[in-house]
C-alpha cells in the first residue's frame, strides 16, 4: 500500500507539471495578447505604447523565464496580477471560488438525488415499460444542450412569472442563496443525473446477476431487502467513480450555465478571461481546475483501493 501511494502520488505530480507546461505554452501560442486587447477599448494600436505595456507586464521576457516566474508564484499562492483589473489574481479568484463550489455541490447533490434512485428503480424493473420510459428520459438528459435548457428556463420564467432567476447581488441569507442557485444547479445537474442513473442501472444489473445475490435470494431474503441492501451497497463503488469523473465534467457545464444565468463564479470568469487574454487569471484557473480534477481522481483511486480488495496495489 505504501509504495502504491508513493508511486501514485509522484505520477500525479508529474501529470500536474505536464499540465502546467501545456497550459502555459498554449496560452503563449494564442495570437493577440493582453496589450492588443487593452488597445481594443482605445480603438487603435500604438506600437511604442504596446511595447511599453508588454514590458511592464513582463511579456517581453523569454517564455521559459515567464514560466518559472509563474510556477514560483503558484507554489507560494502568489498568482500575479490580473492584467485587466490590475488587482492580485488571488483576490479576483478567491471570492469567486465558493460561488462555483456551492453551485457545483448543489448540482452534484441534485444529480445524485435523482440519478441514484431512478437508476435503482430502472434496474429492478428491467425491461418493463417503466424502465423504458426512464431510460428515454435519461438519454434525453444526455442529449439536451445545457445552454438551450438554460435559455428556455429564462424565457419561460420571464413570460409566466415576470421575473427571472439571474444573479444580481450577493444573496442575503442561506435560503435566498439556495433559491438563487437551485435553478441553474438543476440545469447543470440534469445531465449528470442522467449519467448517474444509467451507471447505477448497469452496475445494479451486474451485481444482481452475481452469485451472492442469488444466494441471498435462495436464503429467503425479501426482494426489497436484496435490492436495496445488497445490490445497492455493491453498486456504490462504480457510482462513486463516476461521481468523481462527473465533478470534472460539471465544470464544463458550469461554464455555460454561469454565463447564461450571469453567476459570478470562476467558470464564467474563465471564459471572459480567455477572451481578453488575461493570462495570470486563465493559467491559474485552468491549473486550479486541473488540480481539483487530478485530486478527485486520486481520492477516488484511493477509495477504490480501500474499498475493493481485488485491486492490487503493486500495479
Amino acid at each position: 500500500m505504501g509504495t502504491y501511494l508513493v508511486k501514485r502520488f509522484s505520477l500525479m505530480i508529474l501529470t500536474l507539471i505536464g499540465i502546467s507546461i501545456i497550459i502555459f505554452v498554449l496560452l503563449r501560442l494564442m495570437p493577440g495578447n493582453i496589450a492588443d486587447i487593452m488597445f481594443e477599448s482605445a480603438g487603435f494600436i500604438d506600437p511604442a505604447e504596446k511595447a511599453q505595456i508588454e514590458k511592464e507586464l513582463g511579456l517581453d521576457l523569454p517564455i521559459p523565464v515567464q514560466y518559472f516566474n509563474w510556477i514560483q508564484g503558484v507554489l507560494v499562492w502568489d498568482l500575479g496580477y490580473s492584467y485587466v483589473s490590475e488587482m492580485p489574481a488571488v483576490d479576483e479568484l478567491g471570492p469567486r471560488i465558493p460561488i462555483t463550489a456551492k453551485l457545483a455541490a448543489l448540482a452534484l447533490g441534485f444529480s445524485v438525488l435523482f440519478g441514484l434512485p431512478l437508476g435503482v428503480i430502472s434496474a429492478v424493473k428491467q425491461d418493463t415499460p417503466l424502465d423504458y420510459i426512464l431510460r428515454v428520459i435519461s438519454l434525453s438528459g444526455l442529449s439536451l444542450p445545457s445552454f438551450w435548457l438554460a435559455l428556455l428556463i429564462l424565457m419561460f420564467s420571464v413570460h409566466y412569472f415576470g421575473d427571472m432567476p439571474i444573479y444580481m447581488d450577493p444573496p442575503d441569507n442561506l435560503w435566498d442563496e439556495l433559491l438563487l442557485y437551485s435553478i441553474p444547479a438543476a440545469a447543470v445537474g440534469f445531465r449528470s443525473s442522467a449519467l448517474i442513473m444509467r451507471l447505477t442501472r448497469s452496475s445494479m444489473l451486474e451485481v444482481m446477476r452475481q452469485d451472492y445475490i442469488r444466494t441471498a435470494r435462495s436464503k429467503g431474503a425479501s426482494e426489497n431487502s436484496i435490492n436495496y441492501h445488497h445490490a445497492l451497497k455493491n453498486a456504490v463503488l462504480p457510482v462513486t467513480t463516476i461521481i468523481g469523473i462527473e465533478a470534472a465534467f460539471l465544470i464544463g457545464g458550469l461554464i455555460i450555465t454561469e454565463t447564461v444565468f450571469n453567476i459570478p463564479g470562476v467558470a464564467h470568469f474563465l471564459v471572459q478571461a480567455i477572451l481578453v487574454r488575461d493570462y495570470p487569471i486563465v493559467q491559474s484557473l485552468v491549473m486550479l481546475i486541473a488540480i481539483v480534477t487530478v485530486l478527485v481522481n486520486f481520492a477516488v483511486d484511493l477509495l477504490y483501493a480501500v474499498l475493493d480488495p481485488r485491486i492490487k496495489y503493486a500495479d
Partner: protein
Amino acid sequence: MADIDHRAELAKAGAHVTTRWDKLVFFARRYPLGAVGAVIMLVFVFSAVFADVISPHDPLQTKASASLAAPDGEFILGADMMGRDMYSRIIHGARISLTVGVASILLGGSIGVLIGLMSGYLLGWFDLIMQRLIDVMQALPLLVLALVMAATLGPSLENTIIAISIPLVPNVARVVRSSTLSLREMPFVEAARAAGMSEMRVAMRHVLPNILAPLIVLFTAQLGAAILVEASLSFLGLGVPAPHPSWGRMLSESAAEYARVAPWLVVFPGLAISLAVFGTNLFGDALRDILDPRQRS
C-alpha cells in the same frame, strides 16, 4: 470476436435469420429504441448529404422583407433577423454538425489508435511518456480544453474540428492500449509473430480488427459529444464562425435577443441539436449491447 457474440446473441433469441432484411427486422424488434435512433440518424445524415437539394432556400440569402418572419408556407420554420430561412439553415446545420463529428472522429480516432497501438506494443519509455500525456489530457475537462484550444487557434471550421478531436485521443488510446496488451499474448498473435510477420503487420492484421468493436462504441458516443461540444463552443462564439449555419451559433446572440418576438429562432435549432444527439445516443446504446455485451447498460 464481435462477430461471434453477435451471432450468439441472435441464436439465443431463437431468430430465424437468413437475409439482411430479416436481420434488420430482428434488430428493430430486439432493440426498438436503437431502431428509433437509427432512423433519426438516417434522417440526419440524409439532410447533411442532400442539404443543397432538399433545402428550399439558400441558407445564406438575406431578405429584408422576411426579417423575423413567422413560420408559414414560404418559411416552414420561420426566418431569422436577416431574413434567412431557418428550415434551410437547420438542414445545412446538419452538414456542419456531421462534418465536425465525423472529422473529429477520424482525426482524434486515428491519433488515438496510433498512440494506443504503439504504447501497447512498444511499451517501455514510449509507453510511459504517452501515458503521462494522456493523463494530462484527461485531467482537463473537455469543454475547458476545447475552449482554450478554440481561443488559441481562432474560430474556424477546421480549428473547431481539431479542438473537439483532441479530447477523444486519450479515450481511444486507453482502450486500444489495454486491448493490445491483452491481445499480444494471445496464441494466434504469438503464432503470427512466430511465422515471421513484422510487428507492425501483426498489429494491423490481427490486433486492429479485434479492437474494432469497442472502438465503434466509442466513436458513436463521440459523434453525439462532438455535436454537443460544437454547439456549445459556437454558442459561446468560439466555434464555427458566421456565416456558416451552425446550430449552436443560431442559438447564440441575436437568436436569444429576439427569443420572445420570434421564439422559433430558439426552439428549432435547439430541437435539432437535441434530436440529433438523442438519435446517436439511442443507436449507440443498442450498438454497444450488440457489440460489447459485457458493458450492457
